[in-house]
């Protein structure tokens, strides 16, 4: 990845432009723009209340943004012109052969997953606790199953087409269960799993919807170091082997710095830094935001850094260590 034009500007899978979200008089996000590169693991970080989850909620259709455009681009080489054309046409999405564009701010929630291919997990786990682990994964594949079952009628008759679809769905569920190390718990109620296992199940369930973009809201929160390492492996596996782009919110800087290709830092609803992990690590504004320095002192911090022997890892280590 060259410094000149990183992947997220060359080939974005998601482009957020001038996103603004107001709740009454409170501006949670203020004209935020960023790109998520195709095949990148992108981390959205920032102190508590910076608006990270609000961004997620806008991308996944939980909130309708007050202003702004959120375009998801499937297939390589979708031009901005194509997005503009779609914007003026008033449609929700457009297709051009392999390439397609979806304007997420125009779509309702279930369509964002079903049609556009964005999946997400939650900060507070939202599994279907009363259903088994396997069923949780099958629910995520219901669209194919419903079509194959002729809206249940063929399914009840047990026609071969439905059987095949049901078999395929189960196979996929088992595939993800084995990658999440949950195969032995397949028939247990999801609520009985441990916290770490529930987090992995949530990711496995999201993957069963065949997303192109996976949004993870604090996947490592509350995990012990071993579970956290397992999670890193799973996320990397998803990116490397399935070509799924990952956008994650995370407070655990260890996780962020280890797996991210691209880091975006928010503070008070604005983007204060955007770049590779190394670039962000040494950005004085980021350090200031994490250490709680006043805006006026940012310059001082910047000067201090300049006077130091280049930005050594020692300085950012502070930024890493301090959790808001």
């Amino acid at each position: 990845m060259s410094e000149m034009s990183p992947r997220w500007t060359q080939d974005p899978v998601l482009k957020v432009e001038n996103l603004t979200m107001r709740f009454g008089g409170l501006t949670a996000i203020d004209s935020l723009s960023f790109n998520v590169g195709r095949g990148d693991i992108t981390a959205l970080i920032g102190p508590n209340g910076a608006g990270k989850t609000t961004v997620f909620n806008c991308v996944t259709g939980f909130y309708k943004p007050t202003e702004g455009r959120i375009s998801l681009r499937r297939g390589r080489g979708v031009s901005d012109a194509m997005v503009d054309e779609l914007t003026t046409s008033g449609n929700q999405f457009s297709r051009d052969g392999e390439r397609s564009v979806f304007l997420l701010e125009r779509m309702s929630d279930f369509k964002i997953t079903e049609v556009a291919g964005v999946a997400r997990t939650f900060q507070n786990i939202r599994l279907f606790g009363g259903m088994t682990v396997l069923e949780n994964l099958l629910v995520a594949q219901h669209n194919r199953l419903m079509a194959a079952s002729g809206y249940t009628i063929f399914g009840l008759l047990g026609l071969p087409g439905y059987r095949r679809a049901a078999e395929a769905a189960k196979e996929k569920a088992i595939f993800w269960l084995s990658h999440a190390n949950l195969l032995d718990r397949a028939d247990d109620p999801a609520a009985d799993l441990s916290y770490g296992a529930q987090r992995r199940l949530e990711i496995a369930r999201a993957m069963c919807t065949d997303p192109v973009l996976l949004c993870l809201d604090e996947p490592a929160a509350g995990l012990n170091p071993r579970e956290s390492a397992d999670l890193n492996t799973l996320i990397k596996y998803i990116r490397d082997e399935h070509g799924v782009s990952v956008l994650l919110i995370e407070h655990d800087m260890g996780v962020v710095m280890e797996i991210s290709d691209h880091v975006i830092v928010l503070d008070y609803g604005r983007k204060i830094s955007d770049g590779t992990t190394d670039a962000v690590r040494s950005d004085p504004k980021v350090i200031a935001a994490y250490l709680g320095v006043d805006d006026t002192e940012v310059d001082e911090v910047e000067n201090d850094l300049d006077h130091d022997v280049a930005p050594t890892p020692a300085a950012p280590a502070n930024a890493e260590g301090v959790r808001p």
Partner: protein
Amino acid sequence: MEYFLQQLINGITLGSIYGLIAIGYTMVYGIIGMINFAHGEIFMIGSFIALTAFLVLASLGITFLPLVLLIILIVAMGFTALWGWSIERVAYRPLRGSFRLAPLITAIGMSIFLQNFVQVTQGARIKPLPPQITGGVTLLSSSDGIVVQLSTMQMIIIVTTVVLMAGFTTVINRTSLGRQQRACEQDQKMAALLGVNVDRTISLTFVMGAGLAAVAGIMYLLYYGVIDFYIGFLAGVKAFTAAVLGGIGSLPGAMLGGLAIGLIETFWSGYFSVEYKDVAAFSILAIVLIFMPSGLLGRPEVEKV
């Protein structure tokens, strides 16, 4: 002993009808947390459609009973399901997401509207249907002349209910549609995020509930032979009671509650007084709810902290 057996059979028959209606209440409550008070009227409309279909077939000269019953079953279930779907679409969906009492008031309004609609269009007088299915088997006859009879109609009602319950349980537990319904029941927003079309799932729930109510309506029509625009009210209240007694939101609970209410009613009328059968049914409901607030099979709601 013979008398007891006879009451048991009658009670199970009545309970089956209540149970089928109760499923409609319990499913809708399970998925959107609302009591669909118009469901009793759906049942009433089902029996009116069945009667209409019956008369149309008779005027066409189709009298071969199994064929007639099959056609009536399909027609009544189809049209009643359409009613159920339309009611949800027109009266409940626009209010989803509004405060909790709004759909409840609409449901009561819908119930009154449907009653009056049928009264105006069909007339207020009772509609009789001569018994179609006669005969039965004598199970026991004692020396003092008491006979235990299981009529063909009762057999049909019980068997149909068992078959429908089995089919229904399969749909809910084993099919993709059932999984979606259970998912929506637990967390609609999350289900939507997995690509489940929540509105459609809710519509299908209404359709299924209405279909079962139609079957109950047909059975009521054939069993009692008399219907009017008002039958939905009491049957609806009883079925609702059954759903609450069994634990609202639970399918086996609805069936069990239906049977319990049916049995309580018939035994009370058999051994005590017919006039007070409803009092008995509701008193037992009150007593059960004091000791088991979430009903017989309902799971208590656990508030996570």
